[in-house]
Each structure stands twice: as structure tokens, then as C-alpha cells.
């Protein structure tokens, strides 16, 4: 139990003291998670829209596959990405292994089905009358997409926040693709894994708190988007 208390104290110390390794990990985490969130939202919103708005044959099967993708273990995704970007892999030339870019790719794959699935199920809930109203007001396809997404913005916020939580906390991809290289690809979560591995539970807790703080700040600044 003591290490929890110690962890709290340590968390404050780490941030105040400006400990380089902590701060580089913080930056790495923020960079990759932001990047992967932007990508996955950019791809996931339109896909989720298509899946939720239209009725077509095989839609149900597509949903089942998407739901299954929600259960891709991070290590599995990490291994798959590794296979592609390892020096001998098909994209080895790009030198993405052990880089933040590599991690961001993996995390995008992780977040995409979450954004898509939750967006789709939110869009599915949209009133039929709303769709009809848009069409009768002369909305084209692009407007229908944007207006629909805006109409269910709270649901999409939930999708984004859930995906963000997933991306922020994943270890498997960061470890496998990033390699947990100090000052380079070490993120907070891989750092936590490392400290915990070393038995420095208090340090693990401290870093965990730092991560939670990041999430808190992000969510706080998003909360103005919430329903009043």
C-alpha cells in the first residue's frame, strides 16, 4: 500500500523537477497519441457514417467484423506492424521501426475500429425524420455527412474519448514497434512497464498518475463541447 502514497508524492516531484526522461516520455506520448487520434478520427468518422447511415446487404457481417477488430490485442497489432516495417519487411526501406511514427501507425489501427464502431452505432440511432429533413432541405451527400456527424456530436465525442483512452494506455504496440528506447521512443506506458518490471512500483504509479493527468487535461478542455 505504501507505494501508492509514495507514487503520488513522486508524481509531483517528477513533474516539478523537470526530470528529462519523464518529460521526453510525456512529449512522445502526446505526439503519438495526437497523431494516431487525428488519423483514426479522420478515417473512422466517414467509415462509421457509411456503416451507420446506409442499409446494405452484408452490413451486419461488416459490423461483426468491426466488433471483432475491437478485440485485436495490441501485441498482435504490434507484431503485424512490425512485420511490415521491420528492415526485412515490405516497408523496411522507410526505416519506421523504433520510431514514433511507427507507433502512431499501430495506434491508428488500434483506434480506428473503436471510432468507427461507436460512430456507426450513434449514427444508426439517428431519427429517420432527421435524414428526411436534410434531404428535403436540399442537402447534398457531403452536407448530409457533416450535418449528421454534427447532430450526434456528443456520441462522437464519446467515441473519440474512448479511443483516446485506449491509445493513451496501450503498451503492446509502443513496446513492439517503438522498442521503449530511452529519450526516443519511450512513452509513459512503456516507462511504466519498465519501472514496474524493475519493481519500482512507486515510480510506476507516479508515471501512471502523470498519464492520467494528461488525459484529465485533454478531457477537461474537451468538456466545453459537452451538452450544457
Amino acid at each position, binding site marked *: 500500500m505504501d507505494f501508492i502514497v509514495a507514487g503520488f508524492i513522486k508524481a509531483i516531484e517528477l513533474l516539478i523537477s523537470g526530470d528529462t526522461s519523464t518529460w521526453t516520455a510525456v512529449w512522445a506520448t502526446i505526439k503519438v497519441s495526437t497523431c494516431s487520434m487525428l488519423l483514426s478520427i479522420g478515417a473512422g468518422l466517414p467509415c462509421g457514417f457509411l456503416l451507420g447511415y446506409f442499409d446494405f446487404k452484408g452490413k451486419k457481417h461488416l459490423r461483426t467484423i468491426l466488433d471483432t477488430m475491437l478485440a485485436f490485442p495490441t501485441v498482435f497489432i504490434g507484431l503485424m506492424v512490425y512485420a511490415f516495417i521491420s528492415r526485412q519487411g515490405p516497408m523496411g526501406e522507410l526505416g519506421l521501426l523504433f520510431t514514433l511514427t511507427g507507433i502512431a501507425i499501430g495506434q491508428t489501427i488500434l483506434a480506428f475500429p473503436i471510432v468507427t464502431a461507436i460512430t456507426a452505432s450513434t449514427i444508426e440511432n439517428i431519427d429517420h*425524420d432527421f435524414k*428526411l429533413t436534410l*434531404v*428535403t*432541405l*436540399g*442537402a*447534398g451527400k457531403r452536407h448530409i455527412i457533416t*450535418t449528421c456527424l454534427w447532430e450526434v456530436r456528443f456520441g462522437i465525442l464519446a467515441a473519440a474519448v474512448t479511443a483516446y483512452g485506449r491509445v493513451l494506455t496501450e503498451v503492446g504496440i509502443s513496446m513492439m514497434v517503438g522498442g521503449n528506447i530511452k529519450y526516443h521512443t519511450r512513452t509513459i506506458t512503456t516507462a511504466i512497464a519498465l519501472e514496474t518490471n524493475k519493481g519500482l512500483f512507486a515510480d510506476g504509479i507516479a508515471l501512471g498518475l502523470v498519464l492520467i493527468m494528461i488525459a484529465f487535461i485533454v478531457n477537461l478542455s474537451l468538456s466545453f463541447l459537452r451538452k450544457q
Partner: protein
Amino acid sequence: MTQKEITYHLKDIQHYYGNTKVLDIADLKIKKGSITGLIGPNGSGKSTLLKLLAFAQKPTRGNIFYKGRIELPFSPTVRSKVTLLTQKPYLLKRTVFENIAYGLKIRKDKKHLKERVKKALLTVGLDDQKFAVRKWHELSGGEAQRVSMAARLILKPEVLLLDEPIASVDTESAGLIRKASLKARDNWGATLVIASHDLQWLYSISDRQLSIFKGNIFSTGLENIITGPFLKSGIKSDGKTLVKKLDDGQIITLKAPGKKTCTAVVIRKKNIAISLEKQLDNGLLNQLSGHIVSMLLEEKKEIIMATISIHNLAFILRLTSDQISRINLYPGKKVILKFHPNDVEWI
């Protein structure tokens, strides 16, 4: 009529929900600048027809010609020109202002937006200052309906389709909506099709009335329709007549239909006579006693629409003021309706 003057031409339209046919229109033309009223009981297919006319849905079979060309949903030539006020108007989760401005914004037509919204609100009798900033849910039922109407009017569309525009709207606003609709036709030549259960209002605005019953259209306007059950035993039980018995003992005799599938009978207004007393030697003539329930003025034609209640059936007749003042008709007065069993059409 040249092709240009015909806004809509529906050809062999059939529409199905699942396996149920809900619309069957062999041929229907709607002239440019006309105001067409749709009359029909619940579930007769009015909203479905309006959705087809709005190109919000594709008919299961058949084609809709718009200005002489077959058009389909999302066709850019109709998309921004035809607009429909749906039966359950839906407001976007935004302010009233944003709701009304939405259509213009997607048309990238943002000049004088504020003033135009203000004007549109005024047209439906809502005060810009009080309402523009309100959120979508801060409105009463009728106010929401009127905001939706304003969102359509501001677009100045070529075709304005209105599905029950005055359900839950107060009398004064109904008048405003009537005025605005007429103005749309007069000012920019809009073609209007309006479905409503308020017959007086509908007659006061439309040039032509179409009656819909079970997906079929009667282009002669409102007609009296009697639905089954019908019994075989006529006065002469020769199989050539059917009867409908009313609970108060009165009997309506009707010529039997040719086809077995018919379930309702139309008795056209022109075939019904009204008087104060029964004729003695009536033969097969139906003479039904009832009383006048209401008399409404069709403003444009100086004709009075009278609703006569025969037990639980309602008949509608169109009378001139001469006819009325001659026999001094007024609501509550007992009258006799007469029509011949042969003057019926089965559907």
C-alpha cells in the same frame, strides 16, 4: 399545355413498403404555378406521394418526370429546387436561427442572412428577437412547426411540398401560412402540393384538389367515400345491389361492384341532392336523413362546403349561397340527402 408548363408528370407510379402496395398512380400531371391539395384519410398515401414528389424516395416502379425529364433522388437539378415540409418536422439541434438559415448556408447563399431569417420568421408570425436565439427544444409544438415552415419558405423553392403544414398550428398562423403559400406562387411562380386534413383551409388555398384513397387518386377533388362492411340483401335481393346498414336503422342501397376486390364506394358530390323533405315515390333512390354539422366558405369560389352527418357517416357537399338561402340551411338543421344506387363507383 406545353412541356415547360408541367412541373410534374407521374407515369405508372407504384410504391411498395415491403410487399404492401401503398401508391398506384397511372398518370398524374401537376402544372407549374398550381396549388394542389391532397385529401385523404390516414394511411391513404399522401405523405408517401409527397416524399416521391420531393425525390426523397424512389418509387418502386414507374417514373417521375420533372419539367419533362426523368429525375431521381439526389439529382442536382432538383435537389435545391424542390423542398418538402415533412409531416413530423424535425429541428436540427441548433438555434432557431441556424435551423432557418441551414438551407441557405448549404446553398452557399449567405447574403443578408440575418435579415432574410428575420423576414422568414415574420412570415410565419414569429418575432425574430424573441425566437431567433432560442434552442431547438425551447419551442411549443406549433412554434416548432412554424419554424420548420420558415426554413422552407426562405429557400424560395420552385416546388414547395407541404405535409400537414397547419396540424397543431393556431388559426391565425394557419392564415399566415396560407398567405405565405399563395405569395410563393404569385411572387416567384412556385408550384405547391399540400396535404391537409383541414378541408376548409385546404380549399381556401388550392386550385385543384386530389382525393387519395388507398393509394389511388381521384383527380376530381374531395369525394364521399363509404367503406364496408356491405351486406348482400338489397331491397331486391337479386345480387345486383349491396346495402350498408347504419346503426340507427337507415339503409344505403348500392349497385354491386363488377369486381370482387372492391372494398369501398365513391359517391360523387355532383350526384347527391340536398332537400328538406323526403320524396314519396322513391323507387331505389337513397334518401338519408341527417343534419348539417358545419358550413365553411371556400373563399376563392364563393362556394360553401357543407358537412352533413348521417348517423356516423359524414357527407360533404359544395353548395352555392343561393341554394343555402333558398332553403335556409344552417348548422343543426335537419336535411335529406338523395342519390341513386347506380351513381356510385367502386374502388
